[in-house]
């Protein structure tokens, strides 16, 4: 890969491989999902390599949570920003945008490939042993944990968007939960409702 200069950082083949391998490793460490590796990504990308600034990093996390799509697309947003900045930012034009897309794609592949292979073969193995007591105990034994972690994920997302615990935002959150449980209203309408209420009330 061509070395591209920017703000004292260069995208070399060595750095690219280091990033790729690191995200492959993160893929296998992400027990509990994409949000679990956020602290580790911060340490690696912001503190150690200084490829992203503090602001860019936290904006990327917020956007990935709010935009539709799996949370792991957060890695693609990081990759996009890394590539863009390494190639000189928006001023550098199409070269930088191309670099952004290339980094976004590569890091996303690194982040999903190892864990997907593991999942695929684990399921095949479990299908063969589905009547074993340990497999049955594992499957239904995880239910309390899964329910607790899902409620936690919701609570942590609420806190991220509402760090001051504004009661109006808490109310929007509760209302959204209630509407999902009690009605068949499409989730897009709930997002739109949240956006309008937030903007109108200036929250």
């Amino acid at each position, binding site marked *: 890969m061509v070395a591209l200069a920017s703000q004292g950082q260069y995208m070399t083949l060595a750095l690219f491989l280091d990033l790729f391998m690191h995200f492959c490793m993160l*893929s296998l460490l*992400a*027990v*509990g*999902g*994409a949000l679990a590796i956020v602290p580790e990504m911060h340490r690696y990308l912001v503190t150690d390599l200084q490829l992203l600034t503090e602001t860019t990093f936290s*904006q990327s996390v917020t*956007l990935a949570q*709010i*935009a*539709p*799509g*799996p*949370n*792991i*697309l957060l890695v*693609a*947003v990081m990759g*996009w920003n890394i590539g863009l900045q390494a190639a000189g930012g928006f001023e550098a034009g199409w070269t930088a945008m191309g670099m952004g897309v290339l980094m976004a794609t590569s890091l*996303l592949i690194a982040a*999903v490939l190892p*864990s*997907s292979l*593991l*999942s*695929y073969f*684990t399921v095949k193995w479990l299908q063969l042993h*589905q*009547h074993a*007591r340990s*497999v049955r*105990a594992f*499957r239904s*034994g995880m*239910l*309390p*944990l899964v*329910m*607790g*972690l*899902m409620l*936690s994920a*919701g609570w942590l997302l*609420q806190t991220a*968007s*509402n760090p001051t615990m504004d009661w109006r*935002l808490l109310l*929007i*959150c509760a209302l959204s*939960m209630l509407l*999902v*449980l009690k009605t068949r209203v499409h*989730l897009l309408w*709930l*997002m739109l409702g949240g*956006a*309008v209420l937030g*903007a109108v009330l*200036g*929250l």
Partner: protein
Amino acid sequence: MSFESLAVSKAPRSRTDLFVSFTWLGLQGFGGVLAVVQREIVDRKQWMTLSEFAEEWALAQTLPGPNVVNLSVMFGGKHFGPTGALAAMAGLLLFPGLLMLAIVLSFQAFAHVPMVASALHGMGVAAAGMVMAAGWRFGPSLLQHPIGRPLAVALTVVSFVLAALMHWPLVKVIGLVGLVSFGLTWWRLQAKDST
């Protein structure tokens, strides 16, 4: 093997069906795809019953990696082998990924407008409510759990307190609550099997 298998699930028709369905899932999934997965796959498509979903989701969440991607790989692979897994995963990531880049680009242009920030907060908490609702819906399955109602509820509360309020690292929460719950369930199943 499920603990309350009342409903029967259907199957996806083809790899294209998988790709399109998971693309649609990804595109409407806010705050992570979890809330939508439950609604689309269980309620609308009926590809899984709620208890099947709880088990698959438990597995997808316990294995490392992004949960919903794991689920797509497991589900696609179960029905159409490696190419099915690839089709489901590609659906989940391709168009939602492009849309994400478009959103990042537009955000970088409008980030300074205060109303945009307010709208983002409103959307953030609405998305959070959806995720909580998805968790809440496991309640009925939880009350039928083989280890008994009080223990199952207690373990759920403990994992919420540890993860959400005490900010324990996930590996520790899974290690502690997962092991205890697995042990208790194994023991109950053993007692049941031997009678």
